[in-house]
């Protein structure tokens, strides 16, 4: 065969030279480019749609919830000396103060003052527990007992909603009346951050649930962190390849994939039923969440330990460290940033978890924050769930406000994790 191209043998179709500039080919290229643009646009649309959804969700929550941090208050003028009889100044000093205040029937004084100022049905303007707000203001500032003073007290939930948005016609009329008289104002709702659950949406707070969450998470951290890190150290540094090690690895991978509600069933059957631990208690919640979080910490810690180069271990061995000293004096300190990142992410997940805690009854209605590990408690996500079920429209803004608080906590934790990773991660 000659090296130069020979004409096509007879009987075979002659190869056409493609007419790249021809109209048909131009059209084909154009359509291929159009399909390329379409595809790229679809990708962009998918990313945009996903992030728009996140933006929309945050927008709805902030839009609904921002008002939950604002409370409406109306003024109430109380002539304390007239209502209580004369109280001498020395009754308000030192240890006698609490006895003096508890001897006063604040509820009655409040009722009388409201009737005098707002007429017979005047209490409808105020929250049903407004008198407790009056009492706490008196305790904070006993001098008010000595004279006539104006008190700002929370309005009823209906009036509050009339002030912010829309409410029942009666409440809107009430609010207009109060406003004309200049007897109403809107302030930051400190009670929302310091109070606990209740039946009146105007007076509920999240501190009780938040404290429950913090106690539960503390238990989770204290249990899951040491166990998770130690298990990771064992599996990564000491475990020999045998049946038991395989079993441990399979268990950890399975636990990481089990739906969270199953851990709730475990907590119910094992901790509540078998060990007869108290229902609704933070310790049971913490134990359950610890089992759920431990695999996350184990997996993150193993990756962090694996990333420490062997030269560190060999150098430590070389100067005479025992195997335990190699790990605890040299490898672990270098792996700590990675372990911390994984732990914080696991804790953030535990903090947002609801379902397993519902199973073990952490939905207690408690108007006081839990004080110990065994007190009936609730946690922030469960509180959100409970409020979302309330019929009273006033709870909508409180639910969203609680969600804002929860999201702030979670985003802060995640930001700290990202910061730790960027700041301390060593690339070997």
């Amino acid at each position: 065969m000659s090296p130069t191209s020979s004409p096509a043998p007879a009987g075979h179709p002659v190869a056409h030279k493609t007419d790249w500039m021809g109209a048909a080919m131009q059209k084909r290229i154009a359509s291929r480019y159009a399909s390329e643009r379409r595809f790229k646009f679809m990708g962009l649309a998918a990313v945009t749609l996903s992030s728009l959804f996140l933006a929309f969700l945050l927008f709805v929550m902030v839009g609904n919830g921002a008002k939950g941090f604002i409370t409406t208050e109306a003024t109430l003028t109380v002539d304390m000396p007239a209502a209580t009889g004369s109280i001498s100044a020395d009754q308000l000093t030192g240890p006698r103060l609490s006895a003096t205040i508890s001897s006063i029937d604040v509820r009655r004084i409040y009722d009388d003052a409201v009737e005098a100022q707002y007429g017979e049905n005047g209490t409808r303007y105020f929250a049903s527990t407004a008198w407790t707000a009056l009492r706490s203001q008196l305790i904070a500032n006993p001098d008010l007992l000595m004279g006539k003073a104006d008190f700002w007290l929370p309005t009823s939930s209906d009036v509050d909603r009339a002030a912010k948005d829309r409410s029942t016609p009666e409440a809107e009329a009430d609010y207009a009346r109060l406003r004309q008289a200049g007897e109403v104002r809107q302030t930051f709702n400190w009670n929302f951050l310091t109070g606990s659950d209740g039946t009146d949406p105007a007076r509920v707070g999240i501190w009780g649930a938040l404290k429950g969450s913090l106690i539960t998470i503390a238990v989770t951290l204290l249990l899951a962190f040491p166990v998770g890190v130690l298990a990771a150290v064992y599996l990564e540094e000491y475990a020999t390849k045998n049946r038991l090690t395989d079993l441990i690895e399979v268990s950890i991978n399975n636990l990481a994939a089990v739906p969270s509600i199953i851990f709730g069933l475990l907590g119910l059957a094992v901790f509540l039923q078998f060990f007869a631990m108290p229902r609704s208690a933070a310790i049971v919640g913490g134990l359950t969440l610890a089992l759920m979080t431990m695999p996350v910490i184990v997996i993150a810690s193993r990756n962090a330990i694996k990333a420490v180069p062997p030269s560190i271990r060999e150098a430590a061995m070389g100067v005479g460290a025992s195997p335990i000293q190699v790990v605890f004096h040299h490898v672990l300190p270098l792996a700590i940033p990675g372990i911390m990142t994984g732990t914080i992410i696991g804790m953030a997940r535990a903090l947002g978890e609801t379902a397993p805690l519902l199973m073990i009854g952490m939905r207690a209605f408690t108007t006081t924050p839990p004080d110990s590990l065994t007190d009936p408690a609730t946690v922030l996500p469960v509180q959100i769930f409970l409020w979302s079920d309330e019929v009273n429209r006033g709870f909508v803004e409180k639910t969203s406000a609680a969600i804002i608080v929860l999201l702030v906590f979670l985003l802060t934790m995640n930001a700290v994790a990202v910061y730790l990773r960027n700041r301390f991660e060593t690339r070997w």
Partner: protein
Amino acid sequence: MTSTAIIFLIAGLGLITWVFARARAGKFITAGPASVHSLPSYHGWYAAMWAVVPAVIFLVVWNSIAPALGSYAVLDSPLAASLPTDPFTRAAILSEARDLSRDANLKVFNDAAVQLAPLYGEADRRYTMIGALAAFLLCFAGGAFAFTRLRPDFRARTKVERMVMLGLLLASLIAILATLGIVASLIFETIRFFNLVSPFEFLFGTNWNPSDKVVDGKATGFGAVPLFWGTVFIGAIIAMAVAIPLGLMSAVYLTQYASPGVRRWMKPILEILAGVPTVVYGYFAALTVAPALRSFAAGIGISNASSESALAAGLVMGVMIIPFVSSMADDSINAVPNSMRDGSLAMGATKSETIKQVLIPAALPGVVGGVLLAVSRAIGETMIVVMAAGLSANLTANPFASVTTVTTQIVQLLTGDTDFNSPMTLAAFALGLTLFIVTLLLNIVALQIVKRYREAYD
């Protein structure tokens, strides 16, 4: 004395032992020329371990048997003779009495419990005291024993390290223990449930209408097919119809088209979607999405649209799963060797043709594995469906109707006072076992697919 106080006291004693043992070992070095085997702090740890570990082990064992001892003490009392002999009611009264002894404000259903409560309180107090005393004795004995063994040539470090190794092993075994705990509790309660309802009726029955009624040792209304259908409908059909296209296209765009700057910002934003708590999604679905969908359904002429629809729950769940699918797809696409991509581009294919005809087919096993993992996560998801999907067990393919899922019913069956003998409680465990097995199988299959696919390109 509360158990917290006991633990703190023992920890304090351990600390004191540590300080003294360490000081004593420190004297070995200053005192003589004899070669000292271990550093003083190892001697400290050795003694502290002897003081604390036996006492804590004893306390754990004691706390797990003390309630049973308390029950025996109560049952031996003359008051208990009048209890009904039926084991179910008897157990109910006893557990109520125990709760009452802990919390006097509790509502009581059985009057017999009121009389037994003080007995329980007294027995509990007595056994707590005995336990605390024994624990302190053990603590002192252990500490003293270890203290007498401290010598310059005593190999404290070796002993401590052996103990640390044991601790590491025990920490790893907790994972096995937790798995066993899950399997055992689910299977145990499920077997009790299957004594009341036949497995066949549970798995293939279509009538879900659970009640506490037990007639002739059989309970009815536990046909779980509508629940299984609802779970699959929401988690595997609607949610995946949202998550697969959006997640896959996001991954394709971010890995193949986006500039590094865009990628650096968009990836974390998508990951935030995975970090939002499910209760927030649930609230969003119930508050915003469901009403909007209902008015939409009414607008296109569907009259019986429910305010709790499968579509609302499925859509929101799909959005939650997007980052999951996206990151799995991302990994699989990145694992395809660059030579395949470059070859396709060199032949004159456009980027999209390369992606559609080379990259995605090559990455398909990984993507399928990721989707299976996403399905297993979606069907185990609880709060979104509890808040947005409803409770009526309908066997319908209408996305605007209300359906219920396995997880919703588990929550529903276990809410309120849980009596461990009622068929409703046991049914929740049977549903839990079903869910556990299905998610486990999905995970095993998915990981196998992903693993085999990785091997193909390694």
